[in-house]
């Protein structure tokens, strides 16, 4: 029983971080229909910023949230404004140019990071990195638990933002029906810029929360990008609640897969869920609810 509970807890805690990663992606996909293949790399940039803040300014990663999130927000806005929005003007045969642009951005971000920091594995080891507490024989890693709680907090904040503020409502409007939103006076260009920035900011938070328990190197982004769109599809494009459930589901499924099927199959579990949902439940978990 302990094995099962420990597995469940592990999956849940990492699911919180996954949810943050997924939330950013689902916003971007929902509003702009862009598959952001640079998502993991944006997280990587945030992690390097956190690392630099820790190494040079002795700033705790949790405080670095206030540096990395706005930083990535700005970077995201810039990317959307100068690299992605212009593509919407060019009529090309294949509408997926935006996706390939994000591939190019991902490569450039990775290589710049490699150039500055080299391929060395870096880590931020704080005093609390390996602190644990036990509840009934099940081990809870402190940083992961805090990450989970912070993820919940950020989710609530995002929710409030989308539901209660004008800007949030405009974003949702563009996600639902771009043309109608424009007719209603929403500046869709501005919205896309802010949305990408927002997505980047969220994944930056995930990076800050991840760095005390994992490590950092330039190529760290790719598997997270894959996870991001698995979660997005799982939860339903554009649905933040869906992303939360998607993230938790993925985390738990991976954990259970690792324990009961075998660790080397962990990645496959996520992908198979992904394909299954894509085929049989194309709207994602969102379809099962009214949200």
């Amino acid at each position, binding site marked *: 029983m*302990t*094995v099962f509970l*420990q*597995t469940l807890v*592990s*999956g849940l805690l*990492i699911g919180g971080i996954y949810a943050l990663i997924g939330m950013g992606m689902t916003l971007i996909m929902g509003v702009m229909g862009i598959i952001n293949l640079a998502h993991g790399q944006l997280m990587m940039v945030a992690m390097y910023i956190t690392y630099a803040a820790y190494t040079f300014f002795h700033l705790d990663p949790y405080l670095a949230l206030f540096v990395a999130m706005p930083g990535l927000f700005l970077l995201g806005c810039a990317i959307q404004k100068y690299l992605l929005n212009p593509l919407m003007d060019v009529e090309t045969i294949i509408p997926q140019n935006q996706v390939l642009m994000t591939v190019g951005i991902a490569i450039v971000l990775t290589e710049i990071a*490699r150039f500055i920091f*080299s*391929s*060395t*594995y870096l*880590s931020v*080891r704080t005093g609390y*990195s*390996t602190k*644990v507490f036990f509840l009934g024989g099940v*081990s809870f*890693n402190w940083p992961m638990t805090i990450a989970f709680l912070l993820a919940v907090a950020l989710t609530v904040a995002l929710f409030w933002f989308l539901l209660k503020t004008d800007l949030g409502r405009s974003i949702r409007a563009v996600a639902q029906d771009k043309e109608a939103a424009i007719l209603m006076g929403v500046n869709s260009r501005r919205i896309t810029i802010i949305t990408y920035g927002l997505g980047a900011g969220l994944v930056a938070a995930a990076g800050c929360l*991840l760095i005390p*328990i*994992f*490590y950092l*190197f330039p*190529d760290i982004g790719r*598997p997270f990008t894959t996870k991001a769109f698995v979660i997005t599809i799982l939860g339903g494009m554009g649905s933040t609640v869906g992303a939360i459930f998607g993230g938790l589901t993925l985390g738990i499924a*991976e*954990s*259970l897969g*690792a*324990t009961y099927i*075998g*660790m*080397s199959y*962990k*990645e496959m579990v996520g992908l198979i869920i992904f394909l299954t949902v894509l085929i049989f439940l194309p709207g994602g978990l969102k379809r099962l609810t009214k949200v």
Partner: protein
Amino acid sequence: MRKGLAGITLILTGLVMCAFLMGPALAQETLKVGIVLPLTGDQAKFGEIEKQSFDLALEEINAAGGVNGKKLEFLIEDDTGRPEIGRSVAEKLITKDQVVMLGGGYASSTTYAVAGVAQQNRVPFLINTGSADDITEKKWDYIFRINPPVSEYASGLETFLAEVVKPQSAVILHENTLFGTKGAEAFKKDCEKLGIKVLMTEGYEAGGIDFKPVLIKVKQANPDIIYMISYVMDASLLMRQSRELKLAPKLFIGGAAGFTLPEFAKNAGAAAENVVSATLWHQVLPLPGSMEYFDKFKKKYNKDTDYHGAEAYAAAYVIADALKRAKSLKADDIKQSLKETDLMTVFGPVKFISYGKKTNQNKLTTYVVQWQDGKMQLIWPANLSKVKYVYPVDWLKVWGY
């Protein structure tokens, strides 16, 4: 379409022009040896240590007169950690740069691919790190290897286990590339030989975040020893998370690789303490020049070296020695000269023999180290070590519980 053809013509003309401009290599003023290493990508760290060791050795060799008066040159090419690039690079070194032989070979899969090229082109290849057994089991006579194959990595551990630890059961965790898989197979056989029951063998894809699901299964199985074959970051996480789960067997043992790097202790922190590992080399071993090499490396590059560096450094000397003794610079003469190698290096004695299914393999024993107070100490064989091993270990106490 006009446009397309024009485009292709332009490009092809450019290629052809390049081909003619960079034609044959310049006259042999120096002896060129091609070295294939990962300089970019995720294996870059090791490639760097080996390159630096090659450079260090090269300086010394050339300062001492080079090879029979001629200057020795290492053309170090980046295989980017991918075997197909390694293959292309090896071909380039052989056909374009006209090297007299090849060296290097870090990752097993890349080494394997490069060895295929070398054998086919009948160019001698001296491997110094790639450890999959298969590579020297193919009866490829142009392939030589100075490092032990992964199946022998744990040979030094055998007596340690038999005389000191005496475990009844074991669990093996390994990363699932060639290196980890073969290492796990080999250790399993060792366990059978020693009468240790292997309760569980689990492979994993390197780079994971959360090993707790597997570790909790291990905790339930309650083995006496846990043997892990991992690259450095996985090794750190495995130990950190074992500590978080209070998973406390009698002993944690690493199969070299990640467990012997300074990064392991740096990243695992308290969780690295008292972890034991097999190793292929340690600077305190009574091998001529090993401590000097360690110090020289530290002085020049301001960081610690490890067995990978020693392998490269020794390989450089073996190459120089073989080239000095070779009757000519023809491939077959170099091959013959390599075969006749009998040299003492900082890595150990080098003599290529055939045993079992293997050919041209240097046979060395391995040793056992243990992390004590953040330093990697040689603990076994007892007559060579300066420090005593710590066993049994009260893990919970060591971990601060």
